[in-house]
């Protein structure tokens, strides 16, 4: 069974035509991979479907805009995957 990181990296690579080998756990989806907001909608759709969750993008964006969180907390790959794992676990609880 592929890891969360492998699944998300594959989604990003296929959605944004980014070589998968350039995507690492330390990659920032926006700053390093250059994913824009429209592509991120496609990625969110694919992640939502793949994991059966609803990424709380609006909440995350609001927290970043309010200075309560940094983009790194949500959009660095390893952190994004950790959030996805939390959402999957919460769904099964």
């Amino acid at each position, binding site marked *: 069974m592929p890891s969360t990181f492998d699944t998300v990296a594959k989604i990003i690579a296929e959605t944004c035509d980014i070589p998968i080998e350039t995507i690492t756990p330390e990659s920032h989806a926006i700053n390093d991979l250059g994913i824009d907001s*429209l592509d991120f*909608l*496609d990625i*969110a*759709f694919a992640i*939502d*479907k793949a994991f059966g969750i*609803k*990424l*709380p*993008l*609006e*909440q995350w*964006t609001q927290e970043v805009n309010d200075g309560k969180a940094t983009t790194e907390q949500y959009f660095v790959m390893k952190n994004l995957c950790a959030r996805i794992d939390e959402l999957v676990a919460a769904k099964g609880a």
Partner: protein
Amino acid sequence: MRLEYFQLLDRIVELDLANRTIRTEATVPHESTIFQGHFPGYPLMPGVLLLETMAQTSGWLIIALTKFQRMPFLAAFKEAKLRTFIAPGTVLSGTAKLEHEGSGYAVTHAEIRVDGKVTCDCEITFRVVNFPAPDLRSYMQKEAERLQFPLGAIADG
């Protein structure tokens, strides 16, 4: 349908919140300045307006599902297919189904049928936000009346 005012739907025929579907109807006008350029001597409904017709059909479904609290804005069309020419006077039957409601976005699949046959279809992504201006919300509520939007379906849904 008033092309120049971007009023591409005539009425909402059916709204099914449980199944997250909508059906609309519109008749392409016989006269429009748009046909002077598209095309002289061979008037056709522009493909981009057929896409907009599917987007508006989908948009009303999202407005219904969010109970007039949120406004969808077009973000992307995928796999859009325009299968036949559409001439003035054609009656279009639009349908849309919500495929996914994400956080701040929604994805629909929409079709236009003519005489029961699919003539256009696509997947559409919308950004869905709180109404950014009171005037816009008022306008959409007036439009809902014009389209015979079944407000009772929202109250019951």
